[in-house]
C-alpha cells in the first residue's frame, strides 16, 4: 500500500495537472470565441459545442474507465484498482453535470426545447443516475473489501445496461444530431472549428486526469487514516 508522503505527492501532481487543464480551458474558449468562425445556421449558440462535446467525451471516458476497472477489480482484487474506479466514477458524475447542463442551454435556442427523450440524452441521464447510485452504495457500505466488491458488481452491470437503454430509446424515436467526427466518412467540420474542438478534447482529457489523480490520492489518504485509527484502537 501507499505511504502518506507518496499520496501527498500524488495529490500535488494532480493539482498541477488540473491547473494546466483549467488554463487550457481558458485558452480553448478564447480561441473558440475570437479565432473560430461563427457557424452559419446556429450562430453563437454553436460555441457551447466546444464545451459540450469534449465534456461528453470525458464523461464517457470516466464512466468507461470506472466500468472497465470494475471488471478488473473482480478479477485481480487489488484495492488500488477500486480506489481509481471510485475516483473515476466521482469525476464522471461531475463531468456529466457539465454535459447535462450545457446540452439544454444549446437545445433551447436550436431545438426549441430544453430537453427531449432522445436516445443519447436518455442514456446519458441513466448513466448519470446509475453512477449516482454507485457512489451512494459506496457511501452506505462500511467494510472496504465489501464496498469494493459491491460497487464493482454495479459498475459491470451498469456498463452492460447502457447499450440496452440506447437501443430502447432508439426503437422509440431519435432526434439528436448525428456524429460529425467519429463516423465512417471524413469529419464534416471546417478546419478551424475542428482544431478548436480537438484542443478542447485534449483539455478535458487532461482535466479528467488531473481530477482523478487528486481524488485517488485523497482516497488513498483516507484509507491510510482509517488503517492508522484501526491500528491505534486495536
Amino acid at each position, binding site marked *: 500500500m501507499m505511504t502518506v508522503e507518496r499520496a501527498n505527492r500524488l495529490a500535488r501532481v494532480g493539482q498541477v495537472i488540473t491547473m494546466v487543464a483549467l488554463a487550457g480551458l481558458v485558452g480553448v474558449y478564447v480561441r473558440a470565441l475570437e479565432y473560430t468562425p461563427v457557424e452559419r445556421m446556429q450562430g453563437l449558440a454553436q460555441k457551447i459545442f466546444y464545451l459540450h462535446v469534449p465534456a461528453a467525451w470525458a464523461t464517457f471516458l470516466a464512466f468507461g474507465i470506472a466500468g472497465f476497472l470494475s471488471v478488473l477489480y473482480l478479477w485481480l482484487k487489488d484495492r488500488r484498482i477500486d480506489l481509481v474506479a471510485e475516483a473515476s466514477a466521482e469525476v464522471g458524475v461531475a463531468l456529466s453535470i457539465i454535459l447535462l447542463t450545457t446540452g439544454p442551454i444549446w437545445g433551447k435556442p436550436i431545438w426549441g426545447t430544453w430537453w427531449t427523450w432522445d436516445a443519447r440524452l436518455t442514456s446519458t441521464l441513466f448513466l448519470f443516475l446509475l453512477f*449516482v447510485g454507485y457512489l451512494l*452504495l459506496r457511501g452506505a457500505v462500511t467494510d472496504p473489501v465489501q464496498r469494493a466488491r459491491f460497487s464493482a458488481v454495479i459498475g459491470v452491470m451498469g456498463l452492460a445496461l447502457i447499450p440496452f437503454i440506447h437501443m430502447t430509446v432508439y426503437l422509440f424515436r431519435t432526434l439528436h444530431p448525428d456524429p460529425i467526427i467519429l463516423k465512417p466518412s471524413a469529419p464534416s467540420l471546417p478546419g478551424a472549428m475542428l482544431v478548436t474542438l480537438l484542443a478542447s478534447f485534449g483539455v478535458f482529457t487532461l482535466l479528467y486526469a488531473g481530477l482523478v489523480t487528486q481524488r485517488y490520492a485523497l482516497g488513498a489518504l483516507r484509507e491510510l487514516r482509517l488503517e492508522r485509527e484501526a491500528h491505534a484502537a486495536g
Partner: protein
Amino acid sequence: MPDFLRGVVLIAAKDLRIEWRTRTAFVSALAFAVLVLAVIFFSRDPTLVSANAIAPGALWVTFAFATMLGMHRAFGVERDRHALDGLLLSPVPREAIFWGKWLGNLLFVAGIELIGLPVAFLFYDLPGWSRLPLVAVVVLLATVAFVAVGTLVGAMTARTRHGELLLVLLLLPFLFPPAVAGVQITARLLEGRPLSEVAGWLKLIAAFDIVFLALASLLFPATLDE
C-alpha cells in the same frame, strides 16, 4: 435429481414456504399493485385520454413497483440471526444459491402478475381478453431477467445501510428496457395488431434476458462474503 438442481429447488421451496406462512410480502405487494392501478386510472383527464390508452403503461408501472417490493424480501429473510452464514455453510454451490433465490423471486413475482393482469383488464375494461395469454407470455419474458438483476442487487442491499432505498435507485434503471418494451408490445397486442409488428421489441427483450441472466449469475458469487 442432480445435486445442483436439488439445491436450487430446496432454496426456492424454503423461501416460498417462509412467504406462505406469513404472506406479508405477497399480500402487501398485491394490495400495492391494485392501489397503483387505481391511482393511475385517475391520473388523467378522462375527456382527453381513454383508459385503454394508458392501460399498458399502468400495467407495467404497477408490475415494476410490485416487483421491487418483493426483491428486498429474498435476502432480507437471510439477514435475521445471520441465516445467510448457514446458507453459505450448507453443501450447495454458490451458483445454486443464486438460481434458488431467483426461482423463488420469479414465482413470487409471477404470482403477483398472474393475479394483477386479469385485475387490470377488469378495472380498465380492456377489450382484448382473447389476447390475455399472449400478454401474459410477454410479461413473463420481460420478468425473468429483471428478477435476476433484482436478486443480485437485493443480495447486496439487504446487507447495506438504507438498503431499501438503494435497491429501488439501483434497480429502476434496469427496469427501463424491459418495461418500455413491455408497454409497446402490450399496447400493440391490445389493439389486435400482429406480433410481427413488435419483432424489434421482442428481440430487445430476448437479448436483455440472455445478457442479464448470464451476468447476474456470474457476478453473484462476488456479492457473498468469503
